């Protein structure tokens, strides 16, 4: 059988990721890569009430994408929400608040509406400036696919009333 370069390349690629293939057996004592991360799962009822505005800043740990609107910078905390930075004075930006949106990565603003991904859902948000809270004016459920692990894994054992909101390192693995 004559192998062309492409075939050899694809074969070597597949071998590179053979440890990603799912297997329940742990015969050689080496944990499968898929098991390094496990999904964080919330019940729908809890998930649907998890978006909130916190008027105290959070420490930025795992910085994600950024968005600028007028004098404010939004920094995504991956799968957790958005740090709100008051950038009125760019020589002295202030981290002032945190918008809790589980499973989020992206944000865009039009007029008074903030659009974010909330794991599988799209949210339209309105900041209630009187109360210092945020209101979900619209939830479009299941607008997006389940968020995958850093290795691209999907969790298949999910129930209809559950949502994957993050993936965390499995600390039980040696």
């Amino acid at each position, binding site marked *: 059988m004559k192998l062309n370069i492409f075939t050899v*390349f694809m074969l070597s690629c597949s071998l590179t990721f053979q440890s990603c293939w799912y297997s329940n057996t742990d015969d050689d004592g080496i944990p499968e890569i898929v098991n390094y991360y496990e999904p964080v799962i919330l019940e729908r009822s809890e998930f649907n009430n998890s978006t909130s505005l916190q008027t105290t800043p959070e420490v930025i740990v795992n910085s994600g994408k950024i968005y*600028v609107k007028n004098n*404010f910078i939004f920094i995504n905390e991956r799968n957790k929400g958005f740090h709100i930075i*008051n950038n009125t004075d760019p020589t002295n930006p202030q981290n002032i608040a945190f918008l809790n949106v589980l499973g989020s990565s992206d944000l*865009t603003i039009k*007029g008074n509406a903030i*659009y974010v991904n909330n794991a599988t859902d799209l949210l339209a948000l309105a900041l209630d*400036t*009187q109360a210092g809270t945020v209101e979900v004016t619209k939830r479009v459920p299941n*607008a997006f696919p389940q968020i995958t692990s850093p290795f691209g894994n999907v969790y298949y054992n999910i129930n209809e009333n559950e949502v994957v909101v993050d993936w965390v390192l499995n600390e039980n693995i040696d």
Partner: protein
Amino acid sequence: MKTYIIIILALITCSCDSDSNSGVSENSNNIGKAGSLARFTTYNDYLYTVDNATLNVFSINDQTNPVKINDIEIGFNIETLFNYKEFLYIGSQNGMYIFSVQNPEEPQYLSEVQHFTACDPVVANATHAFVTLHTDIGCGTDINVLEIYDVNDVVNPVFISRRNLTNPIGLGLYGDYLIVCDDEVKIFDISDINNTTLVHSINRNAFDVIVNNDTLILIGQNGLYQYSLSPNSIQNTSELSTINI
């Protein structure tokens, strides 16, 4: 303190109509600006999002009430979405796609350029599209380049050039300059598109960039960095601030 924050937050939503904006034309005061890694964008009364395989269209005619009206299967490993006028530039690991949203509810496929693997974000102006490709996982390939395409004819993008870089990711346009997050932040003069040259660099490690008027905002694993830019003196970037992460 809480009152102060509430006032600040009020400003976020209420100050939209007041300040001027010397940025590109589609960036009205009503909307903000995203980095090049964004997957969400708005165009007129529509919100467009990409996920792994799909371009989604939402009507935001009533801004508080987005309604999904269409989804279009594009390909696999879609990563980024960039809007320039009535065009959507979609970056995937396999290539760059250009769609027209002239009919906003029915985005039309116009063209694509294919790579073997490892495509990343794309930004574009009226004449050219700029794409970074990088690989940071082992799969036999080692591609870390900036590619430039002529998109005067969006139905038929023409490859112009490829430049080797170290590990490029986010990028942004500033007039005649292209700013690329590489091992350092590199600024290229693109006024002569066939002969782009590195004119300045900023020794920061960042993965995405927003050019907001004359302010350069960089985000990295270790910080949010801001610099002032001057089109007449691009070498004179002065650091405004750093928030350490």
